[in-house]
């Protein structure tokens, strides 16, 4: 038999060993045993030698790259965030705010935000607290985050939109009220003249100063509601107003119409977010809260009845997330898979599948999945973060660090709750992202039609309008009428004041002398007077007398309502400032305290009658009333007082602001064209 050289060398080595260990050879050596088993194999090519122990491939686990036994998967996946802890900390923060404990507020709020970093309500409540406590440093730090949280969360945004809409409606209503009141007071003399001319037989159209009260009194008897009353009262004011004042009134009116118009998609979509029983809320809860049998049951019921594919996908994703959180990874993957069949790039479904794969121990598959997601959704940081956890599990530290850096660079900040368990059975928590903004927006739009129009103002429906007449008709129809009158009435550009004494005049009572439009009194004087001296003296005396009366009236009006005097004298900016201060004060006094940005659901426009201070006269939430020493109440009262103090001090300024009347003397007014009756003059 041919023996190869290297086996010869092996035999020699063994022989040497036997010589060296002569004494040891007396004992039985393990090699002997080996030798016993290996002797027959000397004739075999070791490459083809059989197994040296009884083994079979079937006995080995199915090896697919890096895997971990299924029994080592966590029963329920760990979480980074803890919604319940966040809610509890937030509750403690609100308690601390009620008991005026700023340190408690800060500590608990930080804990709440750490436990649920993307929760928009916590972010905004922090902003509001910073604003109330004049903490500018905190305000500037948290404001961008709050804005981002609002933009990212349709649910949070909806609550904000509802509150903003209600506040804007009230604020606009208060401003509209003071503006119309100011214009009415400023135009009172003209209203008295016009109404007297319309109703009474008097060639001189002497003003009847009580007549302008007729219109509001009659209107109130019809009970048109606040906005209805303002709209109808604004018609003559808008027709008679000129210049910037007209534009301001028009803008206010249009703003009111916009606020009460029920068809805005943004507004309608916000309503489901404040309904605890809505599908939007269900989806939000399913994606964020721990698993709940009630939620799962509800989701399944809705899926069973859904006929819309997009809706079914949304519900299925939410259900899949719930199942995953329960530890039913396979069921969860099945559900995610159903969604991916119709939406292959559905982000939460893709991440969910990869997460489930990770928790089932298939590291490489999970890593591959996350990498693919990162390519499809390059702007989302969750995929990189989760990938980092996989790498950490595989002890690929540099790769994990790189993935974490990428996640951070994409703006992903993981939650960190001290109370949640971040690891279970050696698995780090990965993120199950909720439904995307777009999906939630679609859910909001889908459900929006289920709610009656303007439901968020239902507490105020009797105060704002006159049900069942829709509010937008109550506000819009008078606006259209006013615009029609403005376009139809071609005498708008005719002078409205006597050019000598300044009192109101109209087409019927005016007289034209030497091209000047004069009132009945000045016109009669001009006709009767046969001498220049008498004409000049009479007109001058009348002009001075009326001018002094006007000045006195303007100051009185300005003291009665801040800004009204400036409206009467045409000082737009001063009038606007004063009216705005007054309106802001009224809003803060009557309504500013009613808004709670930290509330789960409540909004002042959606209250039961028993929850309000008075269902008819003050339908504001009684629970929110801070007392007369509340900051909003005090600030509002302060602004109102300030506006009236300014009004009281405005007297000399108003008087100076009234232009000196010149007296119309013959041969002074030289006009080329004589304005005819009804012809617009320039």
């Amino acid at each position, binding site marked *: 038999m041919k023996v190869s050289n290297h086996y010869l060398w092996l035999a020699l080595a063994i022989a040497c060993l036997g010589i060296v260990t002569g004494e040891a050879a007396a004992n039985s050596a393990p090699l002997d045993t080996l030798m016993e088993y290996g002797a027959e194999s000397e004739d075999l090519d070791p490459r083809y030698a059989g197994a040296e122990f009884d083994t079979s491939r079937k006995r080995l686990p199915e090896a697919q790259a890096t895997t971990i036994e299924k029994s080592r998967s966590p029963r329920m996946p760990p979480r980074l965030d803890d919604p*319940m*802890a966040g*809610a*509890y900390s937030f*509750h403690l923060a609100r*308690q601390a705010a009620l008991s005026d404990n700023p340190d408690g507020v800060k500590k608990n709020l930080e804990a709440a935000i750490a436990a649920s970093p993307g929760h928009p309500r916590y972010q905004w409540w922090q902003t509001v607290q910073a604003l109330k406590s004049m903490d500018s440093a905190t305000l500037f730090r948290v404001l961008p985050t709050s804005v981002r949280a609002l933009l990212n969360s349709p649910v949070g945004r909806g609550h904000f939109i509802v509150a903003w809409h209600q506040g804007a409606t009230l604020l606009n209503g208060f401003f509209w009220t003071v503006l119309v009141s100011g214009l009415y007071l400023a135009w009172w003399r003209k209203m008295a003249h016009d109404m007297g*001319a*319309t*109703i*009474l*037989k*008097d060639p001189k159209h002497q003003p009847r100063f009580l007549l302008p009260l007729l219109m509001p009194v*009659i209107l109130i*008897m*019809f*009970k048109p509601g606040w906005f209805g009353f303002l709209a109808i009262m604004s018609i003559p004011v808008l027709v008679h107003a000129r210049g910037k004042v007209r534009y301001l009134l028009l803008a206010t009116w249009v703003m009111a119409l916009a606020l009460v118009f029920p068809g805005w998609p943004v507004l309608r979509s916000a*309503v489901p977010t*404040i*309904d*605890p*029983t809505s599908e939007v809320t269900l989806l939000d809860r399913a994606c964020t809260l721990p698993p709940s049998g009630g939620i799962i049951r509800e989701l399944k019921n809705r899926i069973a009845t859904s006929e819309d594919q997009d809706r079914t996908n949304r519900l299925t994703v939410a259900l899949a997330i719930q199942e995953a959180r329960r530890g039913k990874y396979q069921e969860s993957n099945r559900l995610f898979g159903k969604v991916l069949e119709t939406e292959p790039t559905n982000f939460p479904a893709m991440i969910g599948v990869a997460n489930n794969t990770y928790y089932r121990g298939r590291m490489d598959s999970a890593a591959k999945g996350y990498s693919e997601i990162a390519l499809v959704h390059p702007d989302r940081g969750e995929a990189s973060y989760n990938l980092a956890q996989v790498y950490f599990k595989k002890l690929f530290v540099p790769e994990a660090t790189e993935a974490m850096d990428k996640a951070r660079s994409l703006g992903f900040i993981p939650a960190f709750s001290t109370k949640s368990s971040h690891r279970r059975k050696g698995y780090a928590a990965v993120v199950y992202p909720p439904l995307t903004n777009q999906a939630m927006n679609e859910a909001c739009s889908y459900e929006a039609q289920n*709610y*009656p129009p*303007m*439901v*968020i103002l*239902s*507490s105020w*429906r*009797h105060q704002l309008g006159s*049900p*069942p007449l829709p509010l937008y008709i109550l506000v819009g129809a008078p606006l259209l009428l006013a615009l029609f009158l403005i376009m139809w009435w071609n005498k708008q550009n005719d002078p409205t004041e006597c050019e000598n004494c300044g009192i109101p005049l109209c087409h019927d009572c005016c007289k034209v002398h030497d091209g000047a439009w004069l009132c009945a009194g000045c016109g*009669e*004087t001009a006709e*009767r*007077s*046969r*001498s220049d*001296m*008498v004409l000049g*003296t*009479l007109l001058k*005396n*009348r002009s001075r007398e009326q001018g002094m009366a006007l000045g006195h009236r303007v100051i009185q009006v300005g003291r009665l309502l801040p800004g009204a005097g400036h409206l009467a004298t045409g000082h737009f900016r001063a009038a606007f400032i004063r009216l705005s201060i007054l309106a802001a004060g009224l809003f803060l006094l009557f309504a500013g305290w009613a808004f709670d940005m930290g509330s*789960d*659901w*409540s909004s002042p426009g*959606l*209250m*039961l*009658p*028993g*929850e309000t201070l008075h269902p008819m006269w003050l339908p504001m*939430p*009684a*629970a929110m009333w801070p007392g007369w020493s509340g900051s909003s109440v005090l600030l509002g009262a302060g602004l109102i007082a300030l506006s009236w103090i300014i009004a009281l001090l405005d007297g000399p300024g108003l008087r100076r602001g009234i232009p000196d009347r010149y007296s119309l003397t013959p041969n002074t007014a030289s006009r080329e064209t004589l304005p005819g009756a009804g012809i617009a003059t320039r």
Partner: protein
Amino acid sequence: MALEGQLTDFNLAEILQLLASQQKSGFLNLETNRNMVFIFDKGVLISTRDRRSRSRDPLESFLRAYGFFNEQQWKHVEYVGKNSSLDLTEILISEGLMDEIEIDRVLKSLAQEMAHAGMKMHRGRYHFSPTKDTPPGVKWRYNLDVQALLMEAVRRLDEEALLKDYLPSQAITFKQGSRVLDPDELTESGRHIMEMALAGLPLGRIIRQGKTESFIARDMLKTWCEKDILELVQPGTDDEDSSNRGERFKFKLKSGLRSLPMTILAVLVIGTLGWLRWTASPPAGGNPGESLRRAQIRSEVVTAARLYRYQKGEWPASLSEMVRSGQLTPSVLITVDDLGWQYTLNRKQDKFTFGS
């Protein structure tokens, strides 16, 4: 030192003569049933109008009494006077109602008449306030000799009774006499009175519209009658009065409304709209947000229960316990009671029920 006393001691004529002879300057006030003022400047009568006085301007009374201007002209004069600080004479001149000669004549006539009236007064007081120089504030002064004034006044006193006997009634009318007087022979006043007489106007009206003093008008008419230029017609049936009587009882129905039908129409429209608003309008319906709000309240309670459990490890025994622990506000508890909802805890099954 002022000169004052009773007219029973010193009559007007004596006072005027004294002032004229002594060439006094100042204001002579007579306080009788008709207050009068005579203003002197160095013994010459310059005016009978004291602008400081609150009583009516004698010039205006004179002009109104003798119909110098019509109602419209007086309204204009009043209007101008009310709105300016001009004197009546200035207004009349500037408005072209009288020229300077006329004003002068009228003022002198006024002074004459006042002197005539003053001389008939026997009861009253007089008070003379002297001034050093020309009395101030006199608008439109003239110079009237007191002696001539008194002479004329005495003449009038003498002839007044004759005039009253000749023309006893103000209802006397006149007609053309046998003689015709050439109009050129008459003054403007005479022409005016002649026209009115020949027009058949009664004496009273002629005097009221004669634009001259009553004495002068009567004197003219008497003279013409004596010269057969005019013929007296004694008053007969007073048809004019009976025709006027009917008018007194005419019921005046004047509406202050610009258009009564339109006003009634407007009232009807407003009334109809009001009736429709309160009776015919459909009911407002229930609160559209009630179900939503109820769902919110329910959710608040459930969330509060969950927070309680999170904190304490068990469900609360009652809503009051949640209020005591601070998870629930008292207002929500009140609302829940109002809604009639019940909270029941099932400890065995570790769950609770909440609702109606």
